[in-house]
């Protein structure tokens, strides 16, 4: 790999040297050290596959030296590349040390050449890609697309289980109907109190409580029970308020009431 061009830098033409200076001034224009190497490689005017990596390393190191002299600050990755190329150069120049492990200078050089070739290939591919016919420039999509109308179709789902549960829910609801809903067959204490307050004025003598039951509440047992309970409760309330007296001659004997004498 060690080409004869090793110390040919001085032999470069004036235009080449001017070009090299321009490279340094334009250092911001490079997209990293690989890009710079690719540009430098063009000065060899050979196919990238036949490039002299040693010569390239030399060119790069010269570039970095000049940049230092001109007090141009190079980004760290340019300096890392310089150090690596210096190492590569020494590997290429010195005979291989059999005690040392690791890749040979040739292997490293070949890899650098591969990287350069690959970058060049990608550049060319990018250019070919961008040179293709492009949508909106060379060919065009439909200018007046018709929107696809989305119509929503709602599909209602219900299973047999849902149906049965719903029915069960309604039927269970029935069984739990609150008692208070059955007003028809319930005689409330308020109703009994109202009724007795009206009647008590006439009850100077002991009268059976049963005779105070409202009309139409004696025939049906359920209604009779409700009316009796309400009337009894009302009479207790009236007794407590001191309006009437109660008496019962024996357990389960008829209960009689009369107006409390003033």
């Amino acid at each position, binding site marked *: 790999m060690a080409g004869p061009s090793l110390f040919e830098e001085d032999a470069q033409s004036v235009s080449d040297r001017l070009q090299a200076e321009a490279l340094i001034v334009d250092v911001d224009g490079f997209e990293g050290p690989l890009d710079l190497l690719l540009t430098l490689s063009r000065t060899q005017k050979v196919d990238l596959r036949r490039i002299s990596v040693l010569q390239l390393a030399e060119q790069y190191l010269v570039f970095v030296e000049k940049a230092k002299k001109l007090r141009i600050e190079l980004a760290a990755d340019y300096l890392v590349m310089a150090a690596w190329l210096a190492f590569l150069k020494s590997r290429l120049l010195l005979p291989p040390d059999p005690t040392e492990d690791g890749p040979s200078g040739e292997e490293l050089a070949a890899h650098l050449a591969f990287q350069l070739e690959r970058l060049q290939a990608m550049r060319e591919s990018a250019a070919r890609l961008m040179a293709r016919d492009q949508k909106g420039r060379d060919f065009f999509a439909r200018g007046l697309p018709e929107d*696809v109308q*989305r*119509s929503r*179709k709602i599909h209602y*789902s219900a299973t047999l289980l849902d149906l049965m549960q719903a029915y069960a829910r309604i039927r*269970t609801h029935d069984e*739990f109907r609150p*008692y208070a809903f059955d007003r028809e067959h319930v005689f409330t204490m308020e109703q009994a109190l109202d009724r007795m307050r009206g009647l008590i004025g006439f009850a100077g003598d002991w009268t059976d409580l049963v005779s105070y039951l409202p009309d139409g509440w004696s025939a049906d047992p359920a209604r009779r029970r409700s009316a009796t309970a309400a009337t009894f*409760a009302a009479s207790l309330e009236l007794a407590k308020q001191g309006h009437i007296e109660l008496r019962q001659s024996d357990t389960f004997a008829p209960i009689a009431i009369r107006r409390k004498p003033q």
Partner: protein
Amino acid sequence: MTDDVQEPEKSLFEAPPIAEQERMVEAILFASSDPVTVAEMAARMPHGADPAEALVYLRRRYEGRGVRVVKVGDAWAIRTAPDLGFLMQKEVVETRKLSRAAIETLAIIAYHQPCTRAEIEEIRGVAVSRGTIDQLLELEWIRFGRRRMTPGRPVTFVVTQSFLDHFGLESARDLPGLKELRAAGLLDNRPMPGLGQGDDEGEDQSGQSEMFED
């Protein structure tokens, strides 16, 4: 005017063949976001081109196709053939659960059919909204039955064959009865919201205490 710069000189004098003009009109109509007038086409096409004539050919070419060349005001556009409008509709099917009111109403009709609206309301204990009945009619799960021979001659509702198909029943008689529902654990004494729990006895007592407490 700007075309002059772009177009080769000869096009100033020699118009492209009409087939080529037809291609141009086709591309212009396709890519434009608005209908294009003949004058606009002429301005974009090479000198000497006759877009009106090209349009005649293009229009004929699209006769009976999936899209047509149509006149919109004094301009031209390519539009979907009217009989294919259905392709521009995408149906999104959304599955929803039937509302509680609807499923309960449906259950009552299924178990009690033929069944009037008043009967449904009596069993559910709440009014049945018109929307609920309409929804079930639309789903074709219920239909109108014979009118009831009672005052007012109310309409009745019965379940349909679709209903039976949907729920995998041979007939409405196959619906499980109350006993079976209970056996299946569907009639458990689950607490009703807002009501005291428990059995009938507790219910009675609360009723009684109500009687005595004021």
